[in-house]
């Protein structure tokens, strides 16, 4: 008799897993899933392949296989059947980078570039500490250093600017002391301020009388106003220091810090470092592209923040002015702005005052970009919930404290991708300066097409591809970096 053991099958282990059908995995599976999943897709794939076959081999042939890599002049490039004339780029490379900057002085441009990279790289890597100091270096120290290195420094400033600033600071000190303290000295300060302001206004209508003073002459009105300011400063300082709690010192120290900083910057800029003067006419190539782009970025960011705050301000005059400024510059093409800067700016200034061409372009670009930056920043400000503003006000913060410590850090964080996008547009837009006769990278490449040693039908394509590649490298790099920051800062506030 058969026992159950004889015919009952008891499974003791798992069956081996069967391999998936050959059409679902590997190269064929991938092809079926990604290229031939339906009839439409198959047709699209075939059309795409045909298009690539039509366009890629000739491009590769032109750019690499048939290209002329070395050569002395156009004779090497006009040979029938050759492709890109890279020898042209090789021969002109230094010009494409520096323009006509004197060869002996080009180390200064290199040094500026090194200083820039030294500031940018740690700024761009989130893990590196000292971001505040780094930002100060990039926004304040580096621009001054670059200005001195590139132009040669040793600027001549009328030192009366500092004198006027000091007088204004002294009058402000006297005014604040008079308004905020009850000390007897405050009365003297108030009287001195009033006298100083009245005299200053009156002197505008009076003939200029010069008074000899220690070798040079000084205008009599300046002297009198200066004396009033000195009295106001001393009396005001005494009044504030004598009152407990020193009221007003919180208002005054930024004023004096600003004056000191301005004087220090002027002193540095007018120091002779022994560098020879290189006029901006000689600058060109990537140097000009980067100068225009970086000056635009450095000026447009703070200007944009102030304009955005102005547009959201409760003060009607401030809001109105901000809106008009923003909408005007955003409504017109950059090329008309540059035309205006190059043609109309000299008309707007007093006769005899003149900026050089680069400076005019920089002013135009800065005005134009600030308007776009303002709209980007405003987007961030609008994204901050009302509770943040109300919380800050409930803590008793002033407007600027609230903006500086609560709102702007959050708002700017949100709009970093937008800011980088504005920077990318600005970088591309720098190429427009060639229309008003500056030689940026694109301008100098174009200029060299006319060089009789290299002029051929292949030179333009080669030069444009090279310039396009350089622009692409910068813009693509920036956009990738912005995507990286966006992912990093994405704190999951999405739904």
């Amino acid at each position, binding site marked *: 008799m058969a026992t159950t053991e004889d015919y009952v099958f008891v499974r003791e282990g798992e069956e081996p897993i069967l391999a998936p059908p050959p059409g679902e995995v590997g190269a064929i599976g991938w092809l079926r899933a*990604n*290229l031939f*999943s339906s009839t439409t*897709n198959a047709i*699209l*794939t075939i059309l*795409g392949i045909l*298009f*690539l076959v039509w366009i890629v081999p000739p491009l590769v042939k032109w750019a690499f296989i048939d290209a002329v890599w070395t050569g002395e002049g156009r004779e090497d490039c006009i040979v029938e059947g050759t492709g890109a004339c890279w020898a042209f780029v090789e021969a002109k490379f230094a010009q494409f980078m520096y323009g006509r900057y004197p060869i002996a002085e080009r180390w200064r441009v290199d040094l500026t570039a090194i200083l820039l990279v030294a500031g940018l790289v740690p700024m761009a890597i989130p893990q590196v500490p000292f971001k505040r100091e780094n930002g100060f270096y990039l926004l304040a120290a580096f621009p001054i250093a670059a200005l001195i290195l590139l132009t040669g420094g040793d600027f001549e400033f009328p030192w009366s600017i500092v004198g006027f600033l000091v007088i204004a600071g002294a009058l402000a000190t006297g005014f*604040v002391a008079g*308004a*905020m303290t*009850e000390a007897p000295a405050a009365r003297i300060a108030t009287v001195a301020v009033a006298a100083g302001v009245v005299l200053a206004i009156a002197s505008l209508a009076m003939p200029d009388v010069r008074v000899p003073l220690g070798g040079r002459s000084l205008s009599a009105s300046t002297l009198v106003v200066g004396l009033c300011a000195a009295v106001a400063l001393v009396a005001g300082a005494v009044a504030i220091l004598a009152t407990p709690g020193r*009221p007003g010192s919180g208002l005054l120290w930024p004023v004096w810090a600003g004056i000191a900083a301005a004087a220090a910057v002027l002193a540095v800029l007018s120091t002779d470092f022994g560098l020879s003067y290189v006029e901006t006419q000689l600058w060109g190539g990537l140097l000009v592209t980067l100068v225009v782009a970086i000056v635009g970025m450095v000026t447009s960011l703070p200007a944009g923040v102030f304009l955005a705050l102005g547009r959201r301000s*409760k*003060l*009607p*005059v*401030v809001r109105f*002015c901000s809106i008009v400024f923003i*909408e*005007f510059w*955003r*409504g*017109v*093409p*950059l*090329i*008309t702005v540059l*035309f*205006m800067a190059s*043609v*109309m700016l*000299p*008309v*707007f*200034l007093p*006769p005899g005052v003149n900026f050089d061409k680069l400076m005019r372009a920089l002013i135009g670009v800065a005005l134009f970009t600030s308007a776009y930056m303002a709209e980007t920043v405003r987007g961030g400000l609008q994204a901050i919930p009302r509770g943040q503003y109300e919380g800050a006000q409930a803590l008793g913060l002033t407007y600027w404290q609230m903006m500086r410590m609560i709102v702007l850090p959050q708002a700017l964080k949100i709009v970093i991708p937008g800011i980088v996008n504005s920077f*990318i547009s600005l970088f*591309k*837009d720098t*190429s*427009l300066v*060639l*229309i008003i006769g500056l030689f940026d990278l*694109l301008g100098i490449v*174009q200029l060299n*097409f006319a060089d009789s040693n290299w002029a051929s*039908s292949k030179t*333009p*394509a080669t030069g*444009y*591809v090279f*310039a*396009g590649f350089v*622009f*692409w490298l910068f*813009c*693509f790099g920036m*956009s990738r970096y912005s995507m990286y920051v966006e992912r990093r800062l994405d704190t999951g506030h999405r739904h």
Partner: protein
Amino acid sequence: MAVHEGVTGHPARGSRASLIYDPKVRGIVFQAVLAVVLIGFFAWIATNTIENLRRANIASGFGFFSERAGFDVSQSLIPYTLEMSYGRAFLVGLLNTLLVAALGIVLSSIIGFLVGIGRLSKNWLIGRMATVYVETLRNIPVLLQLLFWYKAVLSVLPGPRQGYTLPFASSLSNRGLIVPRPVFETGFGVTVIAVVVAVVAVIGLAQWARRRQMATGQRLHALRYGLAILIGVPLLTFLISGSPLSFEYPELKGFNFVGGIAIKPEFLALLAGLTFYTATYIAEIVRAGILAISHGQTEAAYAVGLRPGTTLRLIIIPQAMRVIIPPLTSQYLNLTKNSSLAVAIGYPDLVSVFSGTVLNQTGQAVEVIFITMLVYLSISLATSAFMNWFNRRVALVER
């Protein structure tokens, strides 16, 4: 606030100090200072300008508009000779700007939508090709692209004799694109009227079909009938009225073409550059718009039994358009503003004709630049007014 001061015990401190801390007073003082500074600044600019213009002996005012222009314009939509006025030249430039902007907007929208949808395609190859296109051309300045098309592509094409022959007796050479010129004979007006009638009929049909579907649930393939009417009616009219349209074909005589319409290389380069550049931005806008619609919408549509095509048409696209249209409009505006780069390649647009030639001839920089900016500014402001209206209309009403 005498009571308050009495309570806190600082009766003497104050009235003057509180003035400085009063936000209202501060606000008024600050705004007054700003207003005075700005007015002073503009007054300073105005005095300088008047002084400079007087010194340079430049006339002011807008009288130059009616003076004889005396220069030729290479492309004009309206009759123009060098005997005509600066005002006419201004109009020619403005029309040329609008022409290239309108064509560029249409073409870049078509390419942009195709590429944007292509980037989202499940087809790997199409997705990659679209990505490469967008990431390359978007990161290269549009001015460089214009110059590339003009100087590196169109200018180095062979001459008219060796040019590329295209269908419909057209040809592409370094003289530009030569196409046959349509000649409208008498009686063509009937066909035009037929087109108008067909369009009106199709709109009426669509509305009727929609109302019927709402009332009875029965669907009518309005698209099919509509297309039939739209093509059939004008075609029939055209044939019945004896085909009153012929073409003047370009002929090669000597070294150039005679007859036909020559589309100048400047125009082609500008159009190609603007179109391919703006299309990359439109593609990104379309992609972002479609991605912004949450996947739940698609799943819900499938759950109620809609097919993928219908889902796209009835569920995804209407919602995506709400996201797409505002940035799309600003791209159209950018394209219009970028068309001013025509000055770099010599296409006679507004900036090139007016801020270029007219400015050089009259020397009236202030007026000329002011008018040019005003034109672009009014286009921009009109567009943004439209955008605000549109946003209010389609905005989701929450809470």
